[in-house]
């Protein structure tokens, strides 16, 4: 009996280790059930060019890629000073024995040249250093002015190939640029690439602008502007600069936001002193009322499948987050924590709703599952507000106000980003004060 126990014990120990010896094949088996969650080490060489001009363009594209990847917490850029091969050396195929000692899991290489018609031809390859094989490759033809954008597209290709998820680099941020003293604040609509490049103003500051929001399907922004005291909701085509009035709404109007198909806009409107959620069909301009409650219902945001919305209401006595069907039925309260909740925004992945929370004089950005479970706080400060999701649902951008001194000096309001993990908190550079950011979808590629 004791002998049997000893043998059994040995087998149990092996089983507990997840290791077995198979007598038939003399094969050692193990189960690996965890890994090191660390940034993936990646090397990005300058893209090779034959001339001074193309070498400079190749360096500029690589700098965009290196900047994008290094601002994430997903990748760790290996310092180019440590590279043992030049862009020319790796043009056809890298010598992987020169990259393995750097522990580079992936290596990005490429080349640029100006063709006879003036077009910029860019080749990009991503290599598996340890497997000594090509993971992906792309070729682009475009005008040299699009060099930075090529860098963003390459960044997204690397992100997708190494993580399996869509990237968010070939995107833009529209926001409210603020200047002037508090009592005479000038608020202009501004737009820039997600890495702060190509900044420009879309409005002249003559009228106050509020709550810009990107269409999920087009390069179109909806925003509010007060012309005199009259609130107007506008549609602004980023590419053409064309602007149209969606409607002039009586009373207070807040926070227009597109539906996932880009064909409707949900909005909060106060009629007869009672604020409710409405939806407007952009083709027919017919408006339908979704909430009917004496409480203040604001900040509607669609789920990515368009079946439900989240919104903000004080119907329970304090400001909380609710969800409902797209026709206004089946209203469910999902936030029950301490404090007040505002600006709920449904993630493009559908799995979370981001919010602003106010508790005991401090502001927080957090996320919660649509069923009300799993609330997590990601940031905290004097004033954090207005989260917007990257199109892949992995990063949130918001604005943070730093108070000035007693004389109103030294304060600022700026854009910040944070990963869904709560890590990687970063200020997003803007020329002047900035609030209310909205992240675009990935910019469509033209064939």
């Amino acid at each position, binding site marked *: 009996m004791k*002998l049997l126990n*000893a*043998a059994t014990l*040995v087998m149990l*120990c*092996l089983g507990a*280790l*997840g*290791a077995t*010896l198979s007598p038939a*094949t*003399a*094969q*050692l*088996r*193990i*189960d*690996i*059930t*965890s*890994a*090191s*969650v*660390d*940034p*993936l*080490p990646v090397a990005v060489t300058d893209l090779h060019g034959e001339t001074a001009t193309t070498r400079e363009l190749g360096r500029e594209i690589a700098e965009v890629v290196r900047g994008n990847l290094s601002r994430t*917490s*997903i*990748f760790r850029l290996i310092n180019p000073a440590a590279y043992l091969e030049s862009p020319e050396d790796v043009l056809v195929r890298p010598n992987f024995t020169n990259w393995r000692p750097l*522990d580079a*899991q992936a290596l990005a290489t490429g080349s640029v040249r100006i063709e006879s018609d003036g077009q910029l031809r860019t080749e990009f390859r991503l290599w*598996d250093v*340890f*497997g000594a094989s090509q*993971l992906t490759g792309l070729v682009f033809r475009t005008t040299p002015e699009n060099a930075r954008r090529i860098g963003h597209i390459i960044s997204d290709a690397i992100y*997708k*190939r*190494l*993580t*399996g*998820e869509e990237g968010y680099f070939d995107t833009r941020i529209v926001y409210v640029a603020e200047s002037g003293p508090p009592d005479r604040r000038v608020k202009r609509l501004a737009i820039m690439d997600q890495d702060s490049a190509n900044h420009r103003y879309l409005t002249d500051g003559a009228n106050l602008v509020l709550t810009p929001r990107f269409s999920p399907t087009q390069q179109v922004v909806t925003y509010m502007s007060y012309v005199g005291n009259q609130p107007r909701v506008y549609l602004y085509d980023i590419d053409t600069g064309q602007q149209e009035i969606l409607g002039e709404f009586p009373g207070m109007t807040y926070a227009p936001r597109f539906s996932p198909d880009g064909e409707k806009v949900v909005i909060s409107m106060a009629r007869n002193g009672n604020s409710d959620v409405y939806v407007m069909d952009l083709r027919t301009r017919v408006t339908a009322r979704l909430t009917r409650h004496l409480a203040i219902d604001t900040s509607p945001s669609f789920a990515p499948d368009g079946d439900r919305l989240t919104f903000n209401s004080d119907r329970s006595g304090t400001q909380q987050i609710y969800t409902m069907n797209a026709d206004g039925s089946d209203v469910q309260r999902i936030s029950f924590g301490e404090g007040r909740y505002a600006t709920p925004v449904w993630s493009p992945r559908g799995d979370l709703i981001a919010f602003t929370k106010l508790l005991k004089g401090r502001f927080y950005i957090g996320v919660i599952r649509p069923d009300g479970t799993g609330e997590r706080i990601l940031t905290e400060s004097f004033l954090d507000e207005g989260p917007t999701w990257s199109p892949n649902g*992995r990063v949130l951008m918001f604005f943070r106000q730093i108070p000035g001194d007693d004389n109103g000096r030294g304060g600022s309001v700026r854009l910040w980003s944070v*990963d869904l*993990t709560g890590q990687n908190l970063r200020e997003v550079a803007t020329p002047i004060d900035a609030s209310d950011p909205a992240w675009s979808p990935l910019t469509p590629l033209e064939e």
Partner: protein
Amino acid sequence: MSRLTAFLAVSLVAVLTSVAALAEPADLARSLKSHVTDNWVVPDVFGDAELIQVTAVLQMNPDGTLNGTPEVTVTDDGGQSDATVQAYVDSVRAAIDRSQPFSLPADQFDVWRTIEISFNLKEESGK
């Protein structure tokens, strides 16, 4: 010594011998598991990758290097996208490559001539 006692004594020796022989592969497996786990680097965005299961069969050389390319099989894609599964498989291949040469006892080469490793992120991974 009765025949029964003699039989039991012989059996005891045989079992104890097998215990000794098996205990070493257990150590081997523990050490191998730790080594490969350290070299399996995954990004923090693998989503529901814990649902994916991949098996790799490694044919080994006596010096601890791989004899040929590992045979990697997706045994359960966990309902994840092709791109996620592909990235997961790449991370497994990189873990195996990065683990080379495996430091394994040469006198037990027959035990680890072929190694089968199942990769599944069922436990919370650490930084």
